[in-house]
């Protein structure tokens, strides 16, 4: 084969014309925010563009600007000028590329994208669902009406679209209309070279089209990945999107791996006939000057209309509350000074409107709370919501009702919340009971208008299990094997899948298969990529200027809600005012508890007036008797409580903040415990610190960083940071995309510390601790708010145990323990719990005569509506006389009636469940008349069954217990270990006898697994909490034991563990050497195959 030779005719060697080559700018690139199409993160594109020598790069994701701010910040960081754009889908499916030239253009792009999504979530056709605000709506693809595009074109440049779906290719006549609307300077025909068959002919036609329209051509790459190594993933994403395998989506795939970002010269080489169209990209890019990081023009409502300025309005609101709250307070003068200072600062920062807006939202919350709770409700004493986060460090927040903690009395600093160097508006977080929050979100949207407010979005990203299932399916791997691996897989991090695969027994075989090899590589590649948009738990953004001109807004899955296309970090970058309206299960439980107490005792309690120093309550907390108590009920918290022994709200505040990833990774936990124990022994003990400059900022937490605010205090004290600089450090720590920023701040920190006389090693050591803390910690004010709720819940649990248990059961799912464990704990504390009963129970759990009666809604497959229908019928027609009466009076499906019988809800008639089930099957019931749509019913004849009930054996105790667990997820009767105990070896130690053992002795224990934790901070150790008939046992499973017995540790409900008993202070643990399932024994003893499925699943926390 010859290496040189004359070029074939028709192909002009392009390289010769590349001398002084025109610069190429990529104007069409998709990131992973073109969901399941783009294979690279925006910052990967930005970094690759910088490396390849691009001066600028446009991000043009499908029908959205989801990643635009993330991209723009990353691009600027890498020295590449970001261009904002999107590839929009028109009605009919053709694509157009829109690029932003000016601020007006950006506003129009946002409006266009909002319009494209406006019809993506139609209401369900089922008219029954239309009235429900929580109804979910199926998604349709976005589609932009052509007329809207023609109308809102100012400030935008339009390219005719991609090679496959571009308007120029699919509908030249419509392209001509668009070209006329945009004009010659703002409409270009787009030429792409994806190396598909037909490129030459298509581009020739497009050149002709440009000539006919009198417009120019421009080259683009249609980039879908930042590097050739990511191109295979792009194929896989197409398959996932099509919900099929790679083989099954050949027509949808690109057919080669050419859709990646290439060097400008390499792109130019592909267009030998279009060098001017290549050069034109740079000319056009130069015009696209809009910078989304600088020119958004966001304003929050300023309330300046009328004679009274926003500052004056805020001062008036605060003054009125000040007179009420500090009338006789000993803090009055300090509070007055603090208020003056805060109001002056707020005026200076022009933030009065911001506070007034929050105040207004809270007033709305009051209205909503009043409606939800109903007039005269005992919950009336409770605030509609509670402040958390930094907001509670402000007296203005306290006086405007945004926080319930007096910052003067609690000695909370304002620093982090408001300071003169403030670069972004502070967040204000509000927790609400779930019912109030649901209604409030819709009310806020109604109040400020659909154009001015939306929920913040969040992006579901690929973790191990999702990656295994999606990538595996695309590769056509066997479903059963994928499920096995998914269950076996531990982590959140899909990059670990290859390592997990290597641990499978048939790993060697798999490695030989190209599909499995590709699978391992692609799971790592897909790790962390966004899969789809969803809704942030409670963040809302509100804007004075229409929000739909700042960020596109699209309907959420839930009817009545809409979300903006930016996540929390992007909204933060944009400086948007964000209000977090969060639903907190414990607030719902506390509210219900208060209601039950008022109903039962005739006297409502006011939780704001209970004593905060009740030593009986602290006595239980110190004993770690805290199952069900907010924030301090987890296994880790209990172990900590036994050592730290909190005695007051300040101690509890530290306790709440201490068991968090930040303090754990920052190495704060063990020193804090040691210092606390030392202080208990010697009240004169001075906790050691890394440097004397840190003694004061860390005094209250005994020399370690526990609260997020202390990161600021340390940075200021040690490195001389200003408040603003320290805040920048905190922000860098709290974000998911901030490693580079965090390292950039290290230099400034160390330099500042050296100026303060701190040696470099100490400075680095302290910075390492701060970086390890990395934002995963509570601000003190947040911890104060949570500690108060923890105390209130502990108080309710101590003095109203039945009402508290009842409220917890009704607020599920929430907390650390499954309902079965809450019930057992209540029973140990003397609370009687009765099973569901069709003639006694309400739909929800209630307390009657001091006893908790489980609600009918707890019976699996019986929904709330079914339970209420049954209760209503009972109220109307009196108690049910038998199963026949029940079946004929209540319009429940027969299988739900069977569930009621099986779960013991019909035991009230004193007949065996099997007999009732037999009878139920023979009950004649009214049937719908066919063709009447359920409107007409054929009544049942009141005939008796013609067959007699055969003699059926009684259920055994095992069968009844398993039926209880299987039917209601709990059992109020016998514990499975009580039944198993006689069949177990006598050397097994029950939980209540563990205390008799010596530290280090061999021990064997058995129990039902209640909770399992694999914290990211524990180096692979698994913590299990198992329950027997007497109480709980903590198991510590070291990594080698876990690796040998993953299936048992992760899936078996009943286990037997052998190991070493360890006593650390008052903590007792079993370090496991061997663990096995008790499943076969239980199946054999019970003569039932349902043991594994009937017993409740343990709650799982942390890495899987």
């Amino acid at each position, binding site marked *: 084969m*010859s290496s*040189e*030779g004359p070029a*074939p005719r028709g192909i002009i060697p392009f390289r010769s014309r590349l001398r002084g080559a025109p610069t190429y700018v990529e104007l069409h690139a998709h990131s992973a925010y073109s969901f399941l199409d783009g294979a690279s993160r925006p910052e990967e594109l930005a970094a690759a563009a910088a490396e390849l020598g691009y001066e600028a790069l446009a991000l043009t994701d499908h029908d959205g600007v989801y990643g635009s701010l993330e991209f723009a910040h990353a691009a600027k960081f890498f020295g590449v000028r970001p261009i904002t754009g999107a590839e929009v889908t028109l009605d009919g499916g053709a694509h157009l590329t829109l690029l932003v030239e000016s601020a007006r253009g950006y506003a129009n792009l946002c409006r266009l994208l909002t319009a494209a999504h406006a019809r993506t979530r139609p209401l369900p056709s089922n008219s029954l669902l239309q009235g429900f605000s929580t109804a979910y709506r199926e998604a349709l693809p976005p589609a932009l009406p052509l007329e809207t595009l023609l109308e809102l074109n100012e400030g935008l440049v339009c390219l005719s679209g991609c090679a496959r779906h571009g308007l120029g290719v699919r509908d030249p006549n419509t392209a001509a209309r668009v070209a006329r609307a945009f004009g010659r300077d703002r409409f270009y025909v787009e030429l792409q070279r994806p*190396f598909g068959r037909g490129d*030459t002919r298509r581009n020739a036609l497009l050149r002709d089209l440009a000539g006919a329209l009198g417009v120019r051509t421009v080259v683009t790459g249609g980039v879908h990945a930042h590097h050739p190594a990511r191109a*295979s993933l792009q194929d896989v994403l197409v398959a996932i999107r099509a919900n099929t395998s790679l083989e099954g989506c050949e027509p949808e795939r690109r*057919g*080669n791996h050419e859709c990646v970002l290439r060097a400008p010269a390499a792109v130019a080489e592909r267009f030998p006939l279009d060098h001017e169209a290549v050069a034109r990209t740079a000319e056009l890019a130069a015009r696209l000057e809009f910078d989304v990081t600088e020119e958004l023009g966001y304003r929050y409502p300023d309330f300046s209309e009328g004679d009274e300025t926003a500052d004056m309005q805020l001062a008036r609101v605060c003054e009125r509350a000040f007179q009420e709250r500090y009338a006789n307070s000993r803090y009055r003068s300090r509070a007055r000074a603090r208020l003056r200072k805060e109001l002056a600062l707020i005026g200076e920062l022009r933030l009065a409107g911001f506070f007034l807006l929050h105040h207004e939202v809270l007033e709305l919350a009051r209205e909503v709370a009043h409606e939800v709770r109903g007039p005269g409700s005992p919950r009336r004493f409770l605030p509609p919501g509670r402040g958390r986060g930094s907001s509670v460090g402000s007296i203005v927040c306290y006086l405007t009702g945004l926080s319930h903690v007096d910052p003067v009395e609690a000695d909370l600093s304002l620093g982090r919340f408001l300071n003169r160097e403030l670069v972004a508006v502070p967040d204000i977080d509000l927790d609400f009971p779930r019912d109030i929050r649901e209604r409030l979100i819709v009310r806020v949207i109604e109040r400020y208008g659909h154009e001015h407010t939306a929920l913040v979005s969040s992006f579901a990203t690929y973790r191990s299990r999702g990656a295994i299932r999606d990538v595996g399916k695309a590769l056509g791997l066997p479903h059963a094997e994928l499920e096995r691996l998914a269950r076996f897989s531990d982590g959140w991090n899909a990059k670990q899948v290859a390592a997990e695969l290597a641990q499978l027994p048939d790993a060697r075989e798999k490695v030989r298969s190209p599909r499995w090899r*590709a699978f391992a590589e692609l799971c790592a590649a897909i790790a962390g990529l966004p899969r789809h948009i969803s809704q942030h738990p409670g963040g809302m953004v509100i804007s004075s200027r229409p929000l739909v001109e700042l960020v596109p807004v699209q309907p959420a899955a839930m009817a009545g809600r809409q979300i903006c296309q930016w996540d929390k970090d992007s909204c933060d970058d944009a400086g948007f005012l964000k209000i977090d309206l969060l639903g907190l299960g414990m607030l719902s439980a506390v509210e219900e508890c208060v209601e039950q107490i008022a109903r039962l005792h005739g006297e409502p309690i006011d939780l704001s007036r209970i004593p905060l120093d009740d030593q009986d309550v602290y006595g239980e907390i110190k004993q770690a008797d805290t199952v069900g108590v907010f924030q301090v009920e987890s296994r880790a918290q209990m172990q900590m409580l036994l050592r730290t022994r909190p005695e007051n709200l300040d101690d509890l505040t530290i306790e709440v903040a201490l068991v968090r990833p930040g303090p754990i990774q920052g190495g704060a936990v063990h020193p804090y415990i040691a210092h606390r124990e030392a202080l208990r022994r010697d009240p004169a003990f001075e906790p050691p610190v890394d440097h004397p400059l840190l003694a004061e900022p860390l005094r209250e937490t005994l020399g370690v960083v526990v609260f997020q605010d202390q990161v600021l205090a340390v940075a200021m004290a040690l490195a001389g940071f200003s408040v603003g600089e320290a805040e920048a450090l905190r922000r860098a720590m709290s974000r998911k995309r901030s490693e580079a920023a965090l390292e950039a701040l290290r230099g400034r920190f160390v330099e500042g510390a050296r100026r303060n006389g701190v040696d470099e090693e100490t400075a680095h050591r302290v910075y390492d601790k701060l970086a390890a803390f990395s934002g995963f910690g509570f601000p003190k004010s947040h911890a104060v708010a949570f500690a108060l709720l923890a105390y209130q819940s502990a108080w309710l649990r101590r003095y109203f145990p039945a009402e508290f248990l009842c409220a917890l059961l009704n607020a599920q799912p929430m907390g650390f323990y499954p309902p079965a464990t809450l019930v057992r704990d209540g029973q140990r504390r003397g609370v009687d719990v009765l099973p569901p009963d069709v003639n006694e129970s309400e739909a929800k759990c209630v307390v009657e005569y001091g006893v908790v009666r489980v609600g009918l809604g707890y019976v699996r497959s019986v929904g709330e509506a079914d339970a209420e229908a049954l209760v209503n019928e009972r109220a109307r027609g009196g108690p049910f006389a038998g199963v026949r009466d029940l079946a004929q009076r209540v319009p429940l499906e027969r299988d739900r009636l069977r569930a009621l019988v099986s779960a013991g809800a019909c035991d009230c008639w004193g007949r065996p469940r099997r007999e009732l089930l037999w009878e139920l099957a023979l009950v004649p019931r009214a049937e719908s008349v066919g063709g009447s749509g359920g409107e007409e019913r054929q009544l049942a004849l009141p005939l008796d069954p013609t067959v007699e009930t055969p003699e059926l054996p009684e259920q055994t105790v095992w069968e009844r217990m398993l039926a209880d667990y299987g039917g209601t997820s709990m059992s109020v009767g016998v514990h499975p270990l009580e039944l198993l105990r006689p069949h177990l070896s006598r050397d097994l130690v029950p939980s209540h006898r563990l205390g008799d053992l010596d530290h280090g002795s061999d021990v064997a224990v058995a129990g039902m697994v209640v909770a399992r934790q694999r914290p990211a901070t524990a180096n692979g150790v698994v913590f299990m909490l198992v329950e027997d008939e007497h109480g709980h046992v903590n198991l510590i499973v070291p990594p080698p034991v876990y690796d040998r017995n993953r299936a048992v540790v992760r899936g078996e409900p009943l286990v037997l563990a052998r190991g070493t008993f360890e006593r650390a202070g008052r903590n007792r643990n079993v370090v496991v050497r061997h663990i096995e399932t008790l499943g076969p024994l239980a199946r054999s003893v019970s003569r039932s195959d349902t043991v594994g499925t009937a017993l409740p699943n343990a709650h799982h926390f942390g890495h899987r």
Partner: protein
Amino acid sequence: MEAHADGTPRRVNGQGVALVREEWRVVDRWWTEEPVDRRYFEVVLETGQNVVVFRDEERGGWFSQRGA
């Protein structure tokens, strides 16, 4: 088959290539035992004949495709 330095065909079956009308690439089945990586050319030979040839990048070597 003879090719230029840039990989485009120069002679096919002893005939000179008068014109390369189109070039395209196929990369597929990379997840299987038989991955496909081909560089296709539709060429007009000096005889006026239209042929499609491809270079198999996986196995090496040139092939002509019938029925193109």
